[in-house]
């Protein structure tokens, strides 16, 4: 009985978590304009989406979302990794202070980050658009990269850097050939984290996208929903994005699971 209750609890949780996505996925296979009406099975919405039968604004929004995500992830990974190495090599109080300063933006509500960046951009007089959105995303993603690189630095034998210098590597060579290879897993997970955070973001983007008509997926959908109902093609789009993310997750998990037995085999 106890076991049954435990099982039931887990299933209830999973249903609550996944029901909205499953509903979207189910209704992506019908043509009805309004979500919730089932007018028979059809792949037309998928067809529209793939053949470009949707507004070019949506296509642009998808492109913006992905390109901003990639750019933000690249820049924040570089900045965050360098910052992590710097912080790691600091001593005592300075290190604690900087670590705290790094944590604050992560706990800060998005809306505050968004508004303050908006005010900053206005104050320095930058025209807001694609570049300001990328900058804003880099700003809030970087602390997460620092957070995911830091444990890898801590795991590192502190003498390996000195060993590299000792063997004739300049500090730059030691960084490239010894430090970065050792913290790479942290950098990769930081990159993925930054990418997903960027795609996911709504509040910060809304405040920094300016009024030149730039939209990412999240701001596009928001605007679209306010105009009166969601475009039906968003349903297959959501489904595809969900599946892609799921696939990515499975690949990452498989990779990290495979990494371990490989070492055991070599012993």
């Amino acid at each position: 009985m106890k076991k049954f209750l435990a099982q039931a609890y887990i299933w209830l949780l999973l249903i609550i978590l996944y029901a909205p996505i499953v509903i979207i996925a189910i209704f992506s296979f019908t043509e009805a304009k309004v979500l919730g009406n089932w007018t028979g099975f059809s792949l037309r919405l998928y067809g529209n989406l793939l053949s470009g039968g949707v507004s070019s604004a949506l296509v642009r929004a998808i492109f913006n979302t992905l390109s901003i995500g990639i750019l933000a992830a690249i820049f924040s990974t570089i900045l965050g990794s360098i910052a992590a190495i710097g912080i790691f090599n600091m001593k005592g109080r300075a290190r604690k202070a900087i670590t705290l300063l790094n944590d604050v933006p992560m706990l800060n509500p998005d809306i505050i980050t968004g508004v303050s960046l908006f005010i900053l951009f206005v104050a320095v007089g930058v025209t807001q658009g694609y570049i300001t959105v990328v900058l804003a995303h880099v700003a809030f993603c970087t602390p997460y990269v620092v957070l995911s690189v830091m444990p890898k630095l801590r795991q590192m034998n502190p003498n390996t850097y000195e060993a590299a210098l000792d063997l004739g590597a300049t500090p730059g060579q030691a960084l490239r050939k010894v430090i970065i290879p050792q913290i790479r897993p942290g950098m990769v997970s930081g990159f993925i984290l930054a990418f997903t955070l960027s795609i996911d973001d709504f509040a910060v983007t809304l405040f920094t996208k300016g009024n030149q008509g730039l939209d990412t997926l999240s701001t596009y959908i928001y605007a679209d929903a306010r105009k009166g109902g969601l475009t039906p093609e968003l349903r297959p789009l959501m489904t595809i994005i969900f599946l892609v993310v799921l696939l990515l997750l499975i690949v990452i998990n498989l990779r990290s699971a495979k990494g371990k037995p490989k070492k055991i085999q070599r012993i």
Partner: protein
Amino acid sequence: MAGTEEIIRIEHLTKRYDGKTVLDDFNLNIRKGEFVTFLGPSGCGKTTTLRLIAGFITPDEGRILLEGKDIATVPPYERPLNTVFQRYALFPHLDVYDNSAFGLKLQKMPTDEIDRKVRKVLKMVAMTDYEDRDVESLSGGQQQRVAIARAIVNEPKVLLLDEPLAALDRKMREDMQLELKEMHQKLGITFIYVTHDQEEALTLSDTVVVMREGRIQQIGTPRDIYNEPVNSFVADFIGESNILNGTMIRDKRVSFIGHEFDCVDKGFGENVPVDVVVRPEDIYISRKTEGEQFYGKVTSCIFKGVVYEMLVQTDEGYELEIQDYNAFEAGSSVGMHVHANDIQVMKKERVCNTFEGEVVSADRVSFLGEEWEIAPTSLEPGTKVKVEVPFGGVDLQDNREDGTIEGEVYFILYKGDRYHLTIKTSEDYFLYVDTQDIWDKGDLVGVKIDPKDIKIVKDED
């Protein structure tokens, strides 16, 4: 095997961290091909010295001359030296071969030459079959071999080894010691070795540098260091020893444990307090009750593999450690004698505590960073004074709060009838105490001094 040609000359090397001197005026000449060991307890400055030579840190004062050129400020990657680290510090993302080839690849050496050298050196450390292995899959001993290979493949002028065997188990350590010694002979490279293990130092080295608290205590061959320690610290640190308070009566005549002995030392003056060292194996023990130099009762007898280690309480009340091939069971009465040339006489480093202080009021004086009550003085407040406290005048308290100041038992020396402790105060001053009580190293204590034991003398300077 070490030639006469000098390879490294270290002059007045000094290093401070946050105002604390961790290495103080270190001077040393190292000959080409020599095996030099820096030996001392943790915190003695041996690793700091090695890191200064390697270039990971820069000195505050002094020079390090390599073949006549000062390299004290040259970055580590431009020094023709290589290091074997204590925890190996292998590159976990590279296999055994690539770890070993790391230095040569940086030198942009042709691939076939790298290949030849790496294979040769891996053969030398017996790791030929492990080329493609992930370094993290290797045992500690194997990792250490790779670490050595990675360093010597570059043919450094000097190889620096920072406690390379400390993480290995005893058997493995002894095997590796022999291999290191062999390797040193074969390569002809100068080795500078850091260890806290005196046995290792004596086994491996041509020259041992004994260090303590950032200062060199003694430089010499293993035999010199063992047979003729310059002070009680070295005597205690190297091997087992009986360290006793004595008095030099005149040249070649010394008294300790209540008897007078002939010895070979001279030049101390007459009736001068000295430290006397007698190694446990140098006390001859017999069942005779007459015709010996002194007598006593065995209090314990333990078999140590080859010899028996016995503790003997002499009739005069001194406890001595004795090693002999024959067992004298506990409780038996024994006679003992010591040969003149087995008695090592050393100058005492100090005969009482001396501190710099200042009179605060008629009955208070400040020293060791605190104010102390004293017998009334006529000196004016503000007068700079020299404060003397005899070793027996310092009172140690179990309860830290009960003392005027707090300290930690830093070093313990048994002197046959009492313990001579070094106390490091919470403000990093050192204080020396004679006591009958048993304390452990690292014990936290409160320090009290009876006002009548504090002697103050006006500072003339």
